[in-house]
């Protein structure tokens, strides 16, 4: 949907010191996230996606705006959760990798060992999550601890949701990071639901950001559907962390418009609620804001959309028919020592 708006006569400067090109790049990553997921839906319906498919429809702005506040040139790190595909794309993950992961291809980053966006790359600065919510908080605290110990001006960012904040590892990790004044930013993506459980059954606090007080760290809350507001809330926290000011908890308020996964019929979400948030779609909003302010033209954004579709056509064409990994490759790489443990004898039944 492209709203009909008129550009101003003389555009104001973009906020937060961002350039026009950067604004366009943020739009690019949001659109790439959505279009890639739409492509995955097609592949899922063709049963080419092996496992579940987890959408971030309506949440693209919080992922992209927060990750965009990191400085890849300085070696900043992040660890996403399942609805932060956009953050990974910002950090350098490619659509081809994501497609291969979902389709369990031999050439996928994890060689078919892990699902969906569960993968990482130390070179590009992202660490794949595991399914145990909250566990990446202590892990990212350890990454940030290494930055502090080596006096490197680098920052670690870790994502949790409204559900992950109920876990013990979240508490232990954020508390450890706060006590150690680690260069870390904890992004809470509050999308209203963890699977079917609404926030009021998850916690008794009124706002998740209130939990920051319990750890003695600053808490910031922003509109997660406004990519510039997300960036504006995150950037100062990243820079404060980089300068030794410790960690920050940021709550980004958004909404999960699809089910927990593609198989979920969302019976517990009212259609009115979903429609209400559809009207607040972060990509539509971005287009409207950019065009109204004169930071982009409708034609420029349409050109980006076309570029993304071509990129995705190419990526899908490249990997759709690739093979899955050979069965025997399941055995190596458990330990650094490449010994293929015990295969020699435990299946031998003929003496």
């Amino acid at each position, binding site marked *: 949907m492209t709203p009909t708006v008129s550009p101003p006569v003389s555009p104001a400067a973009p906020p937060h010191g961002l350039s026009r090109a950067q604004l366009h790049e943020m739009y690019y990553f949001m659109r790439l996230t959505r279009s890639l997921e739409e492509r995955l839906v097609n592949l899922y319906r063709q049963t080419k996606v092996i496992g579940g498919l987890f959408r971030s429809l309506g949440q693209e702005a919080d992922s992209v705006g927060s990750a965009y506040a990191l400085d890849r040139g300085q070696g900043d790190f992040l660890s996403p959760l399942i609805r932060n595909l956009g953050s990974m794309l910002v950090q350098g993950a490619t659509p081809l990798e994501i497609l291969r992961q979902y389709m369990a291809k031999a050439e996928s980053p994890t060689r078919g060992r892990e699902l969906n966006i*569960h993968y*990482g790359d130390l070179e590009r600065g992202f660490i794949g999550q595991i399914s145990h919510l909250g*566990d990446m908080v202590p892990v*990212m*605290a*350890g990454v940030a601890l290494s*930055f502090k110990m080596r006096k490197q001006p680098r920052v670690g960012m870790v994502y949790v949701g409204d559900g992950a904040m109920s876990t013990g590892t979240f508490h232990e990790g954020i508390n450890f990071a706060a006590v150690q004044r680690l260069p870390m930013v904890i992004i809470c993506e509050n999308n209203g639901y963890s699977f079917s459980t609404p926030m009021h059954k998850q916690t008794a606090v009124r706002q998740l950001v209130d939990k920051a007080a319990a750890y003695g760290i600053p808490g910031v809350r922003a509109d997660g559907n406004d990519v510039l507001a997300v960036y504006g809330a995150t950037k100062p926290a990243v820079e404060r962390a980089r300068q030794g000011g410790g960690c920050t908890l940021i709550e980004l308020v958004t909404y999960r418009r699809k089910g927990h996964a593609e198989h979920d019929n969302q019976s517990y979400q009212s259609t009115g609620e979903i429609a209400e948030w559809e009207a607040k779609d972060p990509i539509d909003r971005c287009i409207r804001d950019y065009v109204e302010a004169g930071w982009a033209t409708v034609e420029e954004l349409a050109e980006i959309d076309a570029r993304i579709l071509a990129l995705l056509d190419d990526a899908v064409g490249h990997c759709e028919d690739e093979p899955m990994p050979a069965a025997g490759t399941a055995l190596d790489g458990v330990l650094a020592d490449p010994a293929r443990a015990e295969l020699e004898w435990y299946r031998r039944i003929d003496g």
Partner: protein
Amino acid sequence: MAEVTYLEALRQGMMEEMRRDENVFILGEDVGAYGGAFKVTDGFLAEFGERRVIDTPISEAAIVGAAAGAAHMGLRPVAEMQFIDFISCAYDMLTNYVATARYRAGLPTPMVVRGPSGGYVRGGPFHSQNPEAAFLHTPGLKIVCPATARDAKGLIKSAIRDDDPVLYFEHKFLYRRIKEDLPEGEEILTPIGKARVAREGRDLTIITWSAMVYKALEAAERLEKEDGLSVEVLDLRTLLPMDDEAIMASVKKTSRVLIAHEDTRTGGVAGEITARINDQAFEWLDAPVKRVTAHDVPLPYAPTLEDFVLPQTDDLVVAARWLAAY
């Protein structure tokens, strides 16, 4: 030559590695100013400073998780569990995150989690545990359990240098009871994955590790004197990866095997060793493989109860006689 305790040997090993490699650091509860609940890290804060000797909150999952994150970045953390009983609080981080990191994500995770394990110290249910069986089932971890001062030192040094996560279960009963001459200046590196023949024998093998090695040696002495039996004692030293070669070599030599461990019986490590012998050397056996273990109860506090529940030298002697007569 200097006579050092098991605890001092462990301490020396960690200190040598921290001096050798700037990337090695320690973290845990009360490890800094206090020097650890058992004083294993006494003096570390003074020498290495707060940057490399980190007192943490009471958060075993955070200790292990942060160690993993730091290890990914090229550091070599040594995380202390104040008592190894509390490692269960980090079970999720160890089994789901740490152990799988290399396999699923190619993430190097060179880290050590160590702590005082074991009973015979009137510690009750939560200061006496032997958690090795809980982790033996997890691909991606290594488990070492030193019995001697030399191995306490040699295994911590090898564990710190290992490129995979290593669980180092030291035995608190041995801390100050075991002493050994360790030459100053000698680089002791006990290889991970290699068992040690603690006593040569021909008639029967006792396979064991950690503090049970001493009970096995006592039993072997008595069996030699009283029964004229020649008993071999195999100290496994590493449980994961298990030294099948050493186990089978001893089975083929004596054909009678007794497995002794301090942990409870059901689902214990002895069951796995028995299965391996069954798979690899069944035809060499002259008798069923026999187990001597703790009874299947939480470990009680009263000396009368603890001594009854934990395996004693007498239990080993009785089982060995049964095996020899089979």
